[in-house]
């Protein structure tokens, strides 16, 4: 790392209560990201046929959670009919949970610096519940990420980066347009 960057980081670390502040910032970042993911899940299941196909075989009422140990944030979602509904923040009796071991691991994945498969490979995530169901949730999450993250980040987050058709790009633009109001709706 460049000396000036190191010096800058050392200065920042010297701020009183730095550990608490940095942890709070990471928590807020992840809380916001998870909220966006929850809202995006709803939008993508509503608008993307491949997502509907992916969840068609899921058991009705399957609840799954994504979050960070030990104190959150967490979100819980549920499959009902051909939709996935974002139930809100917290662990609301999920059947399957995908939980990052710490805030740093969550930040790496939700800022697109690390793929979710690499996070699993590096033992940064624990899974509670049926592993096969967890794999299905992971595949659905990958579809959501396709419509949530800019294409420029695909190489970093997918083993086999998807190439979007024109129709898919239009859908992605619609998801982006509707995402902010959806996030706000869930915040209030």
């Amino acid at each position: 790392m460049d000396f000036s960057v190191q010096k800058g980081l050392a200065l920042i670390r010297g701020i009183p209560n730095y550990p608490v502040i940095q942890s709070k910032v990471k928590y807020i970042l992840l809380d916001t990201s998870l909220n966006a993911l929850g809202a995006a899940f709803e939008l993508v299941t509503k608008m993307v046929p491949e997502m509907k196909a992916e969840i068609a075989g899921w058991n009705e009422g399957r609840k799954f959670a994504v979050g960070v140990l030990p104190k959150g944030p967490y979100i819980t979602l549920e499959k009902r009919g051909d939709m996935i509904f974002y139930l809100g923040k917290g662990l609301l009796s999920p059947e399957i949970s995908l939980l990052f071991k710490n805030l740093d691991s969550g930040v790496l994945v939700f800022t697109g610096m690390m793929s979710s498969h690499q996070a699993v490979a590096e033992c940064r995530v624990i899974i509670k519940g049926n592993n096969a169901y967890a794999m299905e949730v992971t595949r659905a999450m990958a579809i959501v990420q396709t419509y949530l993250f800019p294409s420029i980040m695909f190489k970093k987050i997918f083993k086999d980066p998807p190439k979007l058709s024109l129709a898919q790009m239009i859908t992605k633009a619609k998801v982006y347009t509707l995402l902010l109001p959806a996030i706000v709706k869930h915040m209030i």
Partner: protein
Amino acid sequence: MLPNYYQFYCPVKILSGQTAVSNIPFEMSVLGCKKAMVVTDKGVAGAGLIDIVKDAFADSDAKIGYIFDETPPDSSNRIVNKLAQLFSKQDCDCFVAVGGGSSMDTAKGANIVISEGSDDLLKLQGVENITADLKPMIAVPTTAGTGSEVTKAAVIYNEEANAKMAFMSDKLYAEVAVIDPRMTMTMPPKITAATGMDALTHAMEAYTCLQKNPIDDVFAKAAIDLIRHYLVRATQDGKDEEARLGMANAALMAGIAFSNSMVGAVHALAHACGGVCHVPHGVANGIMLPWVLDFNLDMIPEYIAELSGVLGGSIEYLEPADQAQVTVSQVRNLLERLNKISGLPTRLRDAGVSEDMLPKIAEAAVNDGAHVYNPKELTYDIALGLYKKAF
């Protein structure tokens, strides 16, 4: 190449060599245990291997509380729950698992149920989801393939879902692994070959998958080297004690490697073959290994190429992709040789899989967590394509 991040953990005490089984009562005393639940299967008991274990207890204060010999080839959640109830009823304080992967994984599964205070294994599925300290376990492998004696994994068949469930936790390591050549001498040639291919798959996937790391690489290469020396010998002559001990150590080292590096698409495809069509795990791994190496070849030619020398072929200083092809050929040649010696199937059609089952197996394969660690994405279409090639 160092990965950005890796973890390595193996807390298992290893006893390997002549009369190693005789040390079990002493190891129990070190662990503070007095009454063992011996977990095995009818085949192992019928071959007289439990008698060797019983002999070891003859002059000891430690006792065998109960011998559970009902483990089936693919242990299930029902068997695990039954064993857990027996363990409590018989007032045992440790497990001594004597057998192949199924017996060891059954003991691990029951240990989870007992220690978590549950009545059903299905409630405790997951990865690193076990928080309670488990009862001490001593593992005595009678096959040379699974590596379960040194891994943090247990694979149990879910009778309701008709699929294999994988449990992964650092709590699942045995305290002691006992490698005694007497315990693998009775293995028939075909099972020797199949379990040996299982060990080879563990080592090769550990060496080529996403979480490969320098410590596991050492174990993986050492395992492959032992397999090169001893697998054909042990299959040809089961009484070759040196070859048996060599293969038992190979399986153990491959187990240490993959318990940390994890496996990949071969295992996802093999688990599905086992879950849907009951193809023995080692047989399915052996059949799928060359096809998956070939599939991964364009992504990681260097890693696959590096194994050609360890497998016994010359290092020809070809381009990595060409040298990697040499590795794939070596694996195919080994499989063919084992087929000639023991009748080990080389194609899925010879292993009891019908072509119309392939789509169903491919569906199960993409839901198996093992392929997360594979360098290339395994989709349904790719899985089906690989199965068709291997059919």
